[in-house]
Every structure is written in structure tokens, then in C-alpha cells.
């Protein structure tokens, strides 16, 4: 028979590491935000995010999307490392030993806890080599200047880098819908660069489903 005592780890039942109430801690006297491990958290004021968009646009023009994407890639690489360290420490197991469902659920909780919105994965096109990530309530979309193109280049870079580290292969990330353009959520397609990059030009004249049909006609629902 299963022994309940054996199910406990040092009398502990690991739960949701990224539960907001326990993950984010503030020190009023010092004016610092920390996570539950005592690592510093950075709160980005809306004005700063808006200023980054405006400043980059002024300084680099059209290249600003590439700057943000590459910043996101760097951020995503560090984020993946920290994320894995935190999970491994908390669950007392290596990330490789975790089930993919637990890992991805922790990612969703982490994303939400940091105020980056609600993230969900759509694995409909996984067999064709594409993963769709949907994000609702993104502050980076909400604070971006409205335009005719998706603007979450920073998040696209983070996702590309995070899932590249997870898959062990270089992946590209393409945003197809954006809340800043009135869409219900931000949709991102992840896949191998040589398969996904040609779809970059489709974003201006095709919707999300049509782009996926072009990318993988055989498996479109």
C-alpha cells in the first residue's frame, strides 16, 4: 500500500511555486521587490515601457522591432535558466525529470505571476512542427503605440529563446495577432526558422488561421 508519509518531501507538499501571494515579496522600508528566494524583482512602470517604444522608434526607426526581438531573446535565455533553477530547487528534482505538463503549467503560472498576462499553449499543429502560444492581457501590447503590425517583439524574442532552450534547437517566433490591433489575444507561432521566416510577410495580409494553413496545409483543422 502507498505510504502517505513517503509522499511528503521533508514534511512538505510542493504546490504552486509561482503563487502570487507567496512568490512576490516587498520590503517597504527599502522599497525593494523580491521573489520567494530573495532575488530582486524589477517593477516596470507603464511610462518606462511606453518610453522604450517611443525612444527606440525615434533612435532606430524600423529596426526597433529587431532590437526588441533580440533583447527578448537575451532575456528569454536568462529567464529559462532562472526558471529551471527555481523549479529544480523547489520541487527537489531536475527539470528533465519533470513531466512536460507540470513544466508548462509552471511556465503559465510564472508568466501570470510576473504580470505578463495569461499564457496558453495550443498544440494543434505540433505534429507539423509548429507550436502556437496565445497570450491575453499583455502589458507590452497594451502600452504599445497602435499600428498596423503586431508589436510584441520583446515577447516573441523571449518565447523564441525560451522554447529554443527547451527544445535544444534554434526556433523562431512569429506574432500573427496582437491586442494592440484589436485582436482578442496575442498569437505567436513557434517553429524552425527556415520554415517559419517565410511567413513573416504573410502577417500583413493573412489572418492567423490562414497563415497556419499556408505553413501546414495537411494538418489544418
Amino acid at each position: 500500500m502507498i505510504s502517505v508519509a513517503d509522499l511528503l518531501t521533508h514534511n512538505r507538499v510542493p504546490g504552486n511555486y509561482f503563487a502570487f501571494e507567496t512568490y512576490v515579496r516587498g520590503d517597504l522600508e527599502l522599497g525593494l521587490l523580491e521573489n520567494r528566494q530573495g532575488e530582486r524583482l524589477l517593477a516596470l512602470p507603464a511610462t518606462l515601457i511606453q518610453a522604450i517604444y517611443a525612444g527606440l522608434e525615434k533612435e532606430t526607426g524600423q529596426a526597433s522591432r529587431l532590437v526588441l526581438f533580440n533583447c527578448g531573446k537575451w532575456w528569454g535565455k536568462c529567464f529559462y535558466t532562472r526558471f529551471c533553477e527555481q523549479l529544480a530547487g523547489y520541487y527537489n528534482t531536475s527539470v528533465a525529470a519533470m513531466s512536460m505538463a507540470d513544466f508548462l503549467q509552471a511556465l503559465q503560472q510564472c508568466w501570470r505571476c510576473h504580470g505578463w498576462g495569461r499564457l496558453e499553449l495550443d498544440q494543434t499543429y505540433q505534429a507539423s512542427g509548429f507550436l502556437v502560444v496565445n497570450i491575453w492581457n499583455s502589458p507590452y501590447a497594451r502600452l504599445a503605440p497602435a499600428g498596423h503590425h503586431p508589436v510584441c517583439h520583446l515577447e516573441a524574442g523571449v518565447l523564441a529563446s525560451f522554447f529554443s532552450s527547451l527544445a535544444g534547437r534554434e526556433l523562431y517566433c512569429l506574432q500573427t495577432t496582437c491586442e494592440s490591433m484589436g485582436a482578442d489575444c496575442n498569437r505567436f507561432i513557434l517553429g524552425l526558422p527556415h520554415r517559419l521566416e517565410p511567413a513573416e510577410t504573410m502577417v500583413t495580409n493573412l489572418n492567423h488561421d490562414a497563415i497556419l494553413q499556408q505553413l501546414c496545409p495537411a494538418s489544418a483543422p
Partner: protein
Amino acid sequence: MSPHLATLFDEAEHRYLKPEELKQMSQYVGSLPERIVIYRTLRNRELEVMQAVTHQLQLALPQAGQVELERSLRQALLMLRHCAMAMLLNDETIIQEYVSWVGPTARIFNTLSLDILLCRLLNQQLAQLFSSQQLAYLTPLLQLAQQAFSAAPLPPANH
């Protein structure tokens, strides 16, 4: 402490508490000795209760896999600990956070029927352990937590 009561302390510089707010505070403080008794019982007898549940669960589902059983039992332990803390502090938000996290997992691993049976057995064990008066503190929170294993859509997350 419930977020509603906690916000009362922020009012100190603005006003004195209204009679109904004082009554709420008084009710919570008056219920604290009983809440502490329930919490202490749960803390001290957690393993005994859960071991009895485990025994009954394995008898009821002899074909269930060890991995699935262990996963569901861990979630039930977690649920009981969250309910105990929520009961002690009279704070439902602890449970809402738990539900938003556990619900999707139960669906992904397709352990809903196992979890529902486990919850029923756990409720039976707790009914033997506590008086009806004590259960009145615990049952609403257990029911809220066990929404995670219902077939209905989960309530939206707060953040």
C-alpha cells in the same frame, strides 16, 4: 485573515469602524479558538486521515496506477493544507489560488474521476473526525477547493 477584514486596518486614519464591521471582526475573533482547535487536529492527524483515505482508495480502485494515485494523493494533501490555512485565516482567496492551479493539472492528467472519489473519501474521514459545528468552518472551503475536480469550467484566475 480575510482580505475584507484586513482592509479594515487601513481605515484607522480615516474613521472608526461601523457597527457591522466591528461585529464581523468580533465574530472572527470569537471563532478563532475553535479554528485553532480544528487546525491543530488537522495538523496532528493529517497522516492518519490521509492514510485511511489511501487505503479505501486502493480498495475501491485496485486497477488504478501507482503514479496516478500518488499524484492525486499529493494534490489531496495540498488541498487539505490549503483548506486548513484558509479556515484558520478565514481567507477564501487561498483556495481560489489553489483551484486555478490544480484544476488544469487534473484535466491534463485525466485524473478527474480518481480525484472526485478521493475527495468523497476524504470528506467521509473528516466527517468522522470533526463535530458538525467544526465541519461548518471547514466544509465550505473543501467544497470550494473541490471545484477544481468538477466537470464545470474553472472560475477565472485573479491575476
